[in-house]
């Protein structure tokens, strides 16, 4: 008696969202099956990797592998150009860490100037990540979206407190893509999408960041949120959760002690670089299997591995 597995392709599908323009533009989403369930139906667009570049350059970077990769780069723009050559990279994520008013408080004008310089120098799609300060982020997203009109960038992220501002500028006035951020709260994730859609932002301009965490650090909340979002989007055909998911992996994984603790402090743990790579690889893989359509990463070895991982399951 031959065994025929039952297929589980859904009538609903994840929205396909285009980032960037021209030859290097990418499409994420579009699938009607669970992540990597190619045995149920072909997956429309493979998940992608964006390389995170801090506006501080390599300042504070603890990884020798990352430093070596960018050797010779004299500016953030140089790094962004170099990052395009990373095996497996599909997009550049510019992270305005130093804009935080409680930190260096880099001005909006400086952020815009950097964003423009990067956008002029790279061909890959650009993602812009803020500093987590709600007011400042809204200002940066507004100004950068304006300055980079026509580049089809993704801003990360609109939150409950500033979605009106970010949605109206990035999403409507400047026709960019908007990431809607909800910290592992699935009801809020849905609500933000509803609100953005009521503002008039088209569904095909919205991605979700449903939260991020490193493996071992409350990852179960993220994992279950990803599972539940995909179940609602596909099995329940919930249109308000059919946006593709973008997950910042590296900002989390490079902030935990497994990746940061110097070798002299924990000699039995071995190479710091290896620990950082494994943490990034492990977390990114778990996000992708849960349903992230794009992950944001840093280390060239981790990016290469995850790219190979994605291809091997497609």
């Amino acid at each position, binding site marked *: 008696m031959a065994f025929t597995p039952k297929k589980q392709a859904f009538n609903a599908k994840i929205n396909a969202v285009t980032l960037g323009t021209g030859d290097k533009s990418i499409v994420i989403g579009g699938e009607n099956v669970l992540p990597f369930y190619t045995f149920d139906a072909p997956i429309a667009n493979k998940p992608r990797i964006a390389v995170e570049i801090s506006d501080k350059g390599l300042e504070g970077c603890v990884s020798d592998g990352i430093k070596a990769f960018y050797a010779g780069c004299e500016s953030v723009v140089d790094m962004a150009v170099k990052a395009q050559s990373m095996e497996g990279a599909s997009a550049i994520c510019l992270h305005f860490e130093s804009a935080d008013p409680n930190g260096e408080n880099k001005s909006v004008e400086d952020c815009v100037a950097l964003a423009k310089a990067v956008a002029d120098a790279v061909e890959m799609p650009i993602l812009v990540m803020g500093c987590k300060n709600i007011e400042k982020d809204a200002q940066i997203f507004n100004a950068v979206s304006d300055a980079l009109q026509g580049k089809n960038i993704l801003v990360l992220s609109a939150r409950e407190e500033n979605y009106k501002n970010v949605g109206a500028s990035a999403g409507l006035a400047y026709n960019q893509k908007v990431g809607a951020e909800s910290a592992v709260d*699935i*009801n*809020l994730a*849905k*609500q933000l999408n*509803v*609100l953005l859609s*009521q503002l008039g932002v088209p569904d095909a301009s919205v991605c979700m960041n449903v939260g991020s965490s490193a493996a071992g650090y409350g990852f179960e909340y993220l994992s279950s949120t990803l599972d*539940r979002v995909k179940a*609602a989007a596909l099995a*329940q055909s*919930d*249109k*308000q*959760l059919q946006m593709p998911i973008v997950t910042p992996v590296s900002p989390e994984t490079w902030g935990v002690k497994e990746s940061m603790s110097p070798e002299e402090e924990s000699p039995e743990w071995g190479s710091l670089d290896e620990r950082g790579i494994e943490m990034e690889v492990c977390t990114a893989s778990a996000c992708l299997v849960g349903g992230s359509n794009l992950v944001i990463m840093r280390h060239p070895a981790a990016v290469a591995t995850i790219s190979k991982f994605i291809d091997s399951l497609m």
Partner: protein
Amino acid sequence: MAKFITIGERISVTAPAIRRAFEERDPEPILTRCEQQLKAGANYIDVNIGPAESDGEERMQWAVKLLQERFDNVPLALDTSNMKAIEAGIQVYNREKGKPIVNSADAGDRFNRIELAANNDAIVIALCSANGIASDNDERMAHCQRMLEEGLMHGMEAEDLWFDPLFLVVKGMQDKQMEVLEAIKMFTDMGLNSTGGLSNNSNGMPKHIRPIFDSCMLAMAMMQGLTSAIVNPNDQRLMETIKTCDIIKNNNLYADSYLEI
């Protein structure tokens, strides 16, 4: 669990404007009512063309094409006692958004509608009565079982038979209401889908009372597992009740704006 399915009842020859529109083939009143119902959240639209003994086939095809072409292949329930008209309607029906519903079969004179649905890969509403209202749930379930067996015998999936316990009017049959709700629970326990003409229960009541009864009855019926109903989607209280019950039953994920979507 799947979300509750609403079948909009407002395109019906019982309304004079619609009756005239069908007779004169005047699209406007029909399209207007369809649009209103879809906007209000109806999933299926019932098309009651009346017995239409002389021109039923042509009339049903006209209505199906009219509505599906205008409203992105909206799924329809074909509602007439004229079997040929139903078959004609299915011939021109586009299934992209859902199978057609045959409204309706029963365990009496309309028993052969089950075979009709089976032959046309349609959903059928199976009214659990033969000639007149079932006297108790033993009789209701006997009808249910007979129709289910008929459907399965003709190769239907059980899920395509939607059993209708027949909602009864409160003013006059108040003592039978719990029995109807119990019948719904029995369908649910068997894993069957169910539906019914909800507003029967509030027939003859003052206009401002009817939405209250319809909503309460619907909520109690959903608790028993009712999976769909033929309703007036323009009744805001009722539609809000359905959306809320769907949240409580975990058929849909909550968001603060859930009533607006």
